């Protein structure tokens, strides 16, 4: 598991949520000694492209050495590692230069194992059915706005895990594993804009957050569900800053494993949800009052499946 910097430093409760769900699904994973920053693109690549490449290559080399696949709950980490990895695999001269440096610390970049974000990992490797079956209560009747997180699937030549302009996997998890409705909304694929907060443009970052929050407020979304600590910072923390100034959107923000965990029966405390800034109480109340009844669609599906009809 590649945790990155932001989750352990700023949002350890997200780490708690991911670990709780990984453990409950009995997925074998390990922490890796020696992983550094992925490294982050705007703060590192803009200053020194060579060191950006070399640091990512060293991280991948650590996974190579242990012969493990890498999964990260941070979209930025996966995207940066995959971008460098794909670059080095296609550029022999650059790879040799990088490996020249790595040799001096006893490492070698091979890039032979999978690099995946947690969402495609849950979708492809764990499977919708396993997650669905692990839930004690699903989210039928709730409307979730997915925020994809740009770097989960872009750049697609490096990540190759979903359609970069019309992704489906996160939707599949929300619709078919959680049993909720993934809302189709105009700004669904728009970047969160948190990057602006890293380059001294806080006011513009807030404006970018408002683009999505305004739409979701008007559509009465029950929650926003996302898969990246940077997007979480943008929509939970920055929404909270707006609230303090009297600007209310009331859009609770969840990381994907928060909802899987709740459905499995873990409490708000178990999953670290008490650390979220935007109040999740109205969401929890609504969900608790939802009946666990199977709807017509589901009954029809089961009936047809039992007749041997596949979907």
């Amino acid at each position, binding site marked *: 598991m590649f945790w990155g910097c932001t989750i352990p430093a700023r949002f350890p409760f997200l780490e708690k949520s991911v670990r709780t769900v990984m453990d409950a699904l009995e997925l074998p994973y390990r*922490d890796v000694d020696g992983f550094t920053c992925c490294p982050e693109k705007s703060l590192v690549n803009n200053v020194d492209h060579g060191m950006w490449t070399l640091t990512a290559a060293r991280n991948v080399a650590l996974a190579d050495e242990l012969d493990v696949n890498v999964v990260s709950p941070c979209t930025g980490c996966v995207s940066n590692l995959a971008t460098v990895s794909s670059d080095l695999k296609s550029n022999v001269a650059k790879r040799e230069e990088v490996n020249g440096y790595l040799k001096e610390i006893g490492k070698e970049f091979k890039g032979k194992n999978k690099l995946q974000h947690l969402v495609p990992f849950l979708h492809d490797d764990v499977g919708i059915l396993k997650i669905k079956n692990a839930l004690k209560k699903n989210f039928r009747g709730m409307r979730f706005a997915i925020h994809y997180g740009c770097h989960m699937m872009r750049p*697609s030549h490096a990540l190759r895990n979903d359609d970069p302009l019309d992704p489906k996997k996160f939707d599949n998890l929300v619709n078919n594993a959680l049993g909720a409705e993934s809302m189709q909304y105009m700004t669904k694929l728009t970047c969160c804009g948190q990057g602006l907060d890293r380059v001294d443009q806080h006011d513009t970052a807030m404006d970018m957050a408002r683009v999505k929050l305004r739409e979701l407020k008007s559509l009465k979304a029950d929650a926003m569900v996302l898969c990246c600590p940077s997007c979480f910072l943008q929509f939970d923390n920055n929404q909270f800053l707006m609230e303090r100034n009297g600007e209310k959107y009331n859009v609770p923000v969840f990381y994907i494993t928060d909802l899987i965990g709740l459905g499995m029966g873990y409490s708000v405390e178990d999953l670290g949800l008490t650390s979220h800034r935007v109040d999740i109480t109205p969401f929890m109340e609504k969900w608790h009052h939802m009946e666990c009844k199977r709807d017509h669609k589901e009954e029809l599906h089961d009936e047809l499946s039992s007749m041997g009809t596949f979907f």
Partner: protein
Amino acid sequence: MGLDKTLNFDLLQKCLGCGACYDLCPSSLHIEGYDPRAVIGDILQGEHEKWLEHKSIWQCLECHHCLEICYQHYGFENAMTAMRMLATKKGLNPPQVKRGWEMFAKTGRLGEPAMPARKKLNLPEPAASGKEEFVKLYEIYKKSKEAASEDKGA
């Protein structure tokens, strides 16, 4: 530094007449005054200097939407990245980027694990940081770059 060494001017010339990515680029859609083709036009005219201190070049969010929709698979993020690198070389990068880089170069990461919160959440000890090896690698890299630039100078 000539930007024609790092950027493909032929492709950028086509960007000037296209602009398909404006309908997807979050900054073009939502930030007033953000207009990458204005920057690209000046790059092609050799007049990029006037943008180096401009906040526009830091407003590209690197979301890669432009890259994905671009029929040249180029995207104006390439132009913005080249401009940011050039601005950084001249020390014109925003203070936050400078601070971020300094922390990265010293520790190999951008933040230390929040220990009291981890304890409260009953999270395991964080894995070893890799700082020592990272610093060693950075020193080797720096020395090699310095030697290369001295060779060039001589």
